[in-house]
């Protein structure tokens, strides 16, 4: 399945885009998606970044669906 991945701030700059389509087997967990991203862009995103699925923080074992919107969250710096 094809999962849409959103990138922000330093991660978006490092990859030169603010979104990716990543092909992973169904079903896959967040950790599988991160591994696939590591293969494509290990220089740009750390191995275990914060991740949100459909705008909620998610852990590495959360199972992904094809319609999920996954965001890779760089260290937040609001305030």
């Amino acid at each position: 399945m094809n999962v849409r991945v959103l990138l922000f701030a330093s991660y978006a700059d490092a990859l030169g885009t603010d979104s990716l389509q990543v092909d992973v087997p169904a079903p896959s967990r967040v950790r599988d998606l991160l591994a696939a991203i590591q293969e494509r862009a290990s220089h740009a995103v750390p191995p275990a970044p914060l991740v949100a699925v459909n705008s909620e923080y998610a852990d590495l074992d959360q199972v992904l669906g094809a319609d999920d919107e996954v965001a890779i969250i760089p260290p937040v710096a609001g305030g």
Partner: protein
Amino acid sequence: MRTALIHEPIDAAALLQEVSSHGSGATTLFLGTVREVNDGRDVSGIDYTSYEAMAVRELAKIATEAVEKFGTPHVVVEHRLGALGLGDVSVAIAISHARRGPALDASRYVIEQLKQRVPIWKREHYTDGTREWVDPTRHGVAAPSGGAA
């Protein structure tokens, strides 16, 4: 209770008006402002960006937690996005409560949670023309984040 991400200057006086209540004996206003030096570098301004769909939700969750935890409905939080200059207000938290203790504690709670959870990022511009994304985890988790607040 109200929270918002906005792209215009924050009107702190309006926030104070919004939380005013005859039942409140204490009102707190926290303002985060853009500081001229961070990590020894001269800052000329900061760009704030966010994952807005999530940041809106996370900010509302934090304010709801503060309402429940400290027992006042009078909690208003605004965070500004976009290009800010030195001294500009990036975040404002207005809270009123019957008593000063919980009013102060609630304000502290909101800003600390906001800094840990809300997906907002800042890119500092320096007077030497360079710019860089601020990473509060760079010096270890306990290190203070730079720039505003």
